[in-house]
C-alpha cells in the first residue's frame, strides 16, 4: 500500500498486515533514515510542567538536606560536648 494513498483516520499499513495475519512488511533500505540532521531553529519541546516540578523538587530537596545535615551534626556535637563535660566533672572530682 502506498502510504500517500492513506486517508486520514485509516489504519497504518503494519496494522492492516497484522489484521490480515501476515507479518508486518519491513521498510526497504532506501526508505530508512541513513543520517540524522539537526533541525535549525526548531521549537523547544521540553515540558514546562516537568521543568517547573523538577526545579522546585531539586531546590526543596537541597534545602531540606542542608537543614537535616545541620541538625544531625548539631545533635552529635551537643552529645559529644555533654560527654566531655561529664568526663571533665568526673576528673575534677577525682583531682
Amino acid at each position, binding site marked *: 500500500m502506498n502510504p500517500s494513498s492513506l486517508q486520514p483516520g485509516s489504519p497504518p499499513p503494519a496494522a492492516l498486515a497484522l489484521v490480515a495475519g501476515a507479518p508486518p512488511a519491513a521498510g526497504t533500505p532506501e526508505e530508512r533514515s541513513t543520517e540524522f540532521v539537526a533541525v535549525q531553529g526548531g521549537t523547544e519541546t521540553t515540558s514546562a510542567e516537568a521543568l517547573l516540578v523538577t526545579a522546585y523538587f531539586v531546590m526543596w530537596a537541597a534545602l531540606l538536606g542542608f537543614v537535616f545535615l545541620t541538625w544531625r551534626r*548539631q545533635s552529635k556535637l551537643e552529645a559529644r560536648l555533654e560527654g566531655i563535660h561529664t*568526663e571533665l566533672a568526673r576528673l575534677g572530682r577525682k583531682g
Partner: protein
Amino acid sequence: MKRAASPLFPLLLLGTAGVFSTLLYWIFLVVPPAQEAAGGLAQKIFYFHVPSAYAMYLSGVACFLGSAAYLASPREKWNALARAGAECACVFGLLMLTSGPLWAKKAWGVYWVWDPRLTTTLLSVMVYVAVVVMRAFTGDGEAERKFAAALGVLGTVNLPIIHYSVNKWGGNHPTVIGKGGGGLSHPDMKTTLAMGFLAMTLLALLLVWMRARLALLASRTAQAQEELWALSPDQDPT
C-alpha cells in the same frame, strides 16, 4: 551542657515556614504564567530563582563581614559568621544554578550558555565552595582561618560584578528588574516576587544563624576536648 536557644529562633522558624507556604500557594495557584518566549509555565521558577540569587548575595555579605572582622580582630564569633556565610552562599548558589538552567531549557532551548552573568555567578559560587572545602579539609588553625577569611573577602568582591555584568557586557540573561528592564506586567507577579524576596531573606537569616551556632558549638567542643586531653592524655580522641 546545652546552651539555651534564643527565643527569637523559633519565631524566625515559624515566620519563614509561614511565608514559604504562602509563597508556594501564590506561585502554583495564583500568579499567571508569563509569555511563551520567557518560558511559559517554566517562568514560575523565576519566583524562587531570583530570590535565591539575592539570598546568595546576603550570605556572601555575611561571609564578607565575618571574614573582614576576623582579619581585623580574630574572635570565635566572627569566624563562625564567616564560615556560616560561605556555607549558605554555596547552598543558595546551588539553588540558583540548578533552577536557572531548568528555566533556561524552556526559554532559551539550552540548559547553559557562557553568558557573562552565568559565568561570573559560577565563578563566585566556586570561590565559596573553595572556602568551604578548605575549611573542611585543612583543619581549624589560626593560619587556615585567616586564609579562608581572606578568600571570603575576595569572593564577595565578585558579587557586584555579577550584578552589573548584564548591563556592562550584555548576554542572554534577562534584565526584567532594575535598570533597562520592562518590569513585571501583572500585579500578582510583583506580589509573588516580593514574597519570594521576603521568604529568602528570612531563610538566609535562619540558615546563617543555624550554621554560625553550629560553628560556635564545634569550636566549644574542640576547646573542651583539648581541656580533657590536658587533664587526661589517655582519653580516646574520638
